[in-house]
């Protein structure tokens, strides 16, 4: 998934250094799980 690929990129070049910002996302039923899946990919 996209977030895992971004994490691998951070590990490969930036010693894992990454700063995530919430921007948009307007579906209240899906935004929570979208964040958790992203967090799993980026930090899991």
């Amino acid at each position, binding site marked *: 998934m996209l977030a895992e690929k971004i994490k691998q990129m951070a590990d490969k*070049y930036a010693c*894992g250094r990454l*700063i995530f910002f*919430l921007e*948009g*996302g307007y579906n209240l039923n899906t935004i929570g799980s*979208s964040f*958790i899946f992203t*967090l799993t990919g980026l930090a899991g």
Partner: protein
Amino acid sequence: MVTARGSTKEDSHRVQSAILYSPFFLKHQAPNYHPENPQRLEAILEAFKKSAFSKNIETIEPKPASKEQIALNHSVKYIEELESFCKAGGGYLDDTYANEYSYISAALAAGAGINTVDMIIDNKISKGFCLVRPPGHHAEHDKAMGFCLFNNAAITAKYALSKGFKKILLLDFDAHHGNGTQNSFYYTDQVLYISYHQWPHYPGTGSAEEKGEGDGLDYTINIPLETGSGNKEFLELFDKIVQPAADKYQPDLIIVSGGFDSHKDDPLAQLNLTDDG
């Protein structure tokens, strides 16, 4: 791999993440129904609290960015006008609202990124997740736009450059083009801005022909997506465009503008990313 701190690299990555969040982010809100509302952040926090991550990822309250720090990316005139506007109770700035709490919320949102940079430099964390409102990527040098007041990611990138980082990859997967971020770094090679977005769509910018200028030529990469593009397109284009650009650039810091409006069920865009993509 063992680091100087004695833990394995894997472990250090896992424990060295933090969430940055302030309760003020819930106080910035429009008087009537608005899609960019505090409930968005409440839904994210609720999901986080229920998840296993809440046991080992600490939540830190950021300090607000100072005017000088915000001025790394915005005109002093705009910063001061926004401050007085909010003090007087707020209202609409073109398409973007602000209330009495919006200046402090926006300063804290930018501060979340700045605090993360400081903690990264101090080796306290390697990853910071800034759960902030208002969002930032549409905010321009001298104006609010698209629900954004200050450009949190751009301020943070400029702050990181001022602290010695040399090459920042700023990846934006929000469904809308980050016009403000693109403009902040259009003429520099110190930030490689890569944006996936539905196109043509709000705000109108972000065609593949916009590539940066001068020193910044080829350091802006736009990946416009047709309506209905989903996991397959995002991943294929990552391998085709994002990965080779990162391999060539070798960034020392990665900043992600994460917009979950790329999700297939988002009301404000028509992309089809799903949670497992």
